[in-house]
């Protein structure tokens, strides 16, 4: 081989933190070169992607709002990936969460009561949880790869929502528009303060980060998760039940994805539509890896990718760049992160 890998003796703390930063910068440089090749102005791009989202109070709040579902889903995925379980169907669990929670809002249409909103959030979480348990149960019972089943279920969830919104749940007064009724005020997650945009979901996301820090770092369960991921045989001998752990990590990631779904539907859309996600479930995978499977790291990466997502919305107008540009960048970013991880573990020798 032209290139060979030599394991490093120990990995310094500094390198661990610097690696994702370098990966991000490398991905940015490549993207900048591509933009130049496409004949776009780099100054405009920098304005659109970085300066604008960060300089007005309005857009800063937008960034935090976008980071909320990403953080919630990524926190759940961290549990799964740390246990070496691959839940790549978070997108589907998100959709089912929005669907279940939205169903409560539709059923309670015209009613008053402080119970409606909590019931919606709980229903959303329950929906995501149950939907997340399907691939876990299929893996436990039939040995089916959770990667494939969870992904297949994304398509199923999207089609089911599409059916409901165009069929039984369609708002009959909305002139054939495929959408549900507009949610009442009692079913809407309102702003935290008068005139602001941030809602209670932001606090729930922070709570999830805190919970994950405690659970992963300080509890027996967190230890079982990491042990199962890193040394499954040893974890088995230590008495950790492999099947139960699979169910647990899928339940957590499904519930958090479902919560993210209903928060988005209630706070930002105020109705159910045929499509309620912009690929948050997939973007969250990149968030989790960019944050090095660390809850606080995920929070920071969610904010970074949220800036990018806000920028990409403006870029569609200002630079005529389709959303595909952002998606390609995310794939590139994940590749750079993985290369960075490899380079912290190995030295690369050429021509050995």
């Amino acid at each position: 081989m032209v290139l060979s890998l030599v394991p490093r003796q120990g990995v310094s703390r500094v390198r661990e933190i610097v690696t994702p930063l370098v990966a991000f910068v490398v991905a940015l440089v490549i993207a900048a070169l591509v933009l130049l090749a496409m004949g776009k102005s780099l100054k405009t791009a920098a304005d659109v992607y970085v300066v604008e989202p960060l300089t007005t109070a309005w857009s800063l709040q937008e960034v935090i709002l976008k980071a909320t579902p990403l953080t919630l889903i990524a926190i759940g995925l961290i549990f799964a990936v740390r246990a070496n379980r691959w839940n790549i169907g978070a997108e589907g669990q998100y959709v089912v969460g929005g669907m279940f929670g939205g169903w409560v809002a539709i059923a309670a249409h015209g009613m008053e009561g402080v119970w409606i909103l909590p019931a919606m959030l709980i229903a959303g979480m329950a929906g995501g949880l149950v939907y997340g348990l399907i691939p876990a149960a299929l893996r436990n019972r039939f040995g089916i790869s959770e990667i494939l089943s969870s992904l297949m279920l994304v398509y199923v969830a999207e089609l089911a929502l599409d059916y409901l919104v165009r069929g039984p749940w369609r708002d009959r007064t909305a002139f054939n528009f495929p959408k549900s009724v507009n949610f009442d005020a009692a079913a809407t997650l309102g702003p935290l303060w008068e005139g602001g945009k941030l809602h209670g979901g932001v606090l729930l996301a922070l709570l999830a980060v805190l919970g994950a820090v405690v659970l992963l770092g300080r509890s027996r369960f967190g230890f079982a998760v990491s042990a199962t991921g890193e040394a499954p045989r040893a974890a088995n001998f230590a008495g950790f039940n492999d099947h139960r752990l699979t169910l647990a990590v899928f339940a957590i990631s499904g519930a958090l994805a479902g919560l993210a779904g209903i928060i988005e539907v209630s706070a930002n859309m105020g109705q159910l539509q045929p499509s309620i996600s912009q690929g948050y479930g997939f973007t969250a995978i990149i968030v989790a890896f960019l944050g090095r499977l660390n809850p606080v790291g995920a929070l920071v990466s969610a904010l970074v990718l949220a800036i990018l997502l806000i920028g990409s919305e403006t870029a569609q107008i200002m630079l005529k760049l389709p959303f595909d540009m952002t998606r390609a960048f995310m794939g590139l970013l994940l590749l750079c992160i993985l290369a960075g991880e490899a380079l912290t573990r190995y030295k690369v020798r050429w021509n050995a």
Partner: protein
Amino acid sequence: MIELLPLILATVITAATPLVIAALGEHVVERSGVLNLGVEGMMIMGASLGFAGAVVLDNSYLGLAIGALAGMVMAGIFALFALGLATNQVATGLAITIFGLGLAGLIGQPFVGQPRPPIPALVFGLDPIVCLSFVLMVGTAWLLNRTRAGLILRGVGESHGSAHALGLPVLKVRLLAVLFGGLCAGLAGAYLSLIYTRFWSPGMTAGRGWIALALVVFAAGSVWRLVAGAYLFGAILIAQLHAQAGAIGIPSQFLSMLPYLMTIVALVVLSMAGRRGAGAAGSLGQPFVPDR
């Protein structure tokens, strides 16, 4: 009905061919012990670049070749990371899929809604790529089960440590397998846009790459089970389209769910038949770093 049979058969075969080709490629990859989850990304790059190439060069055959090469280049990127840098194969494959979906959309943007140059049909309405897929089936089965090269490839997949100790070039064998898988996925994608649908639209692979991956699991090590599974899927795809057109009272969304649900059902049936995890290569998905 009887006189319609050849026609129905031909449509089923056309629908199944991209699955057959992509799954055969991934089958070889997984036999060598590598799990490349980037099939969807390689496939859509083949669909997009193949279509773009065909329109620009005004030749659909050249388009098919370009699509296959595009898939191979994506596979090369996967190999650089997963084999060269020993990165996690699941995560690398996902990255290739996300990257491919985005890049294919960018490249295909100017070609949405354009017609493609014509391709002459052969006997019974079967096109050259269908014939090629037949050759590919026999060739793959023969190569894997009847030749020394196939034995080496399977040995590398079964236990990379032992293969390395025997002096077999583990990473080189895997590189070739991965590149072959990319070539197949790219060709399957180009077939989809140039022959099956005859137009390019973003996201047109619609999970077919993932279904191909499921077919490899379903194959449990046998090329012929893989092929049978792929044609069964082709039949489901066609039946679902006819049911939608025939308005039999079932909402179209439920019919569209069928291929995805059937994938899961097929894997459950496989497991109930007592073949849980059977036939997967021993070293599947594990990175290999030779210690000289």
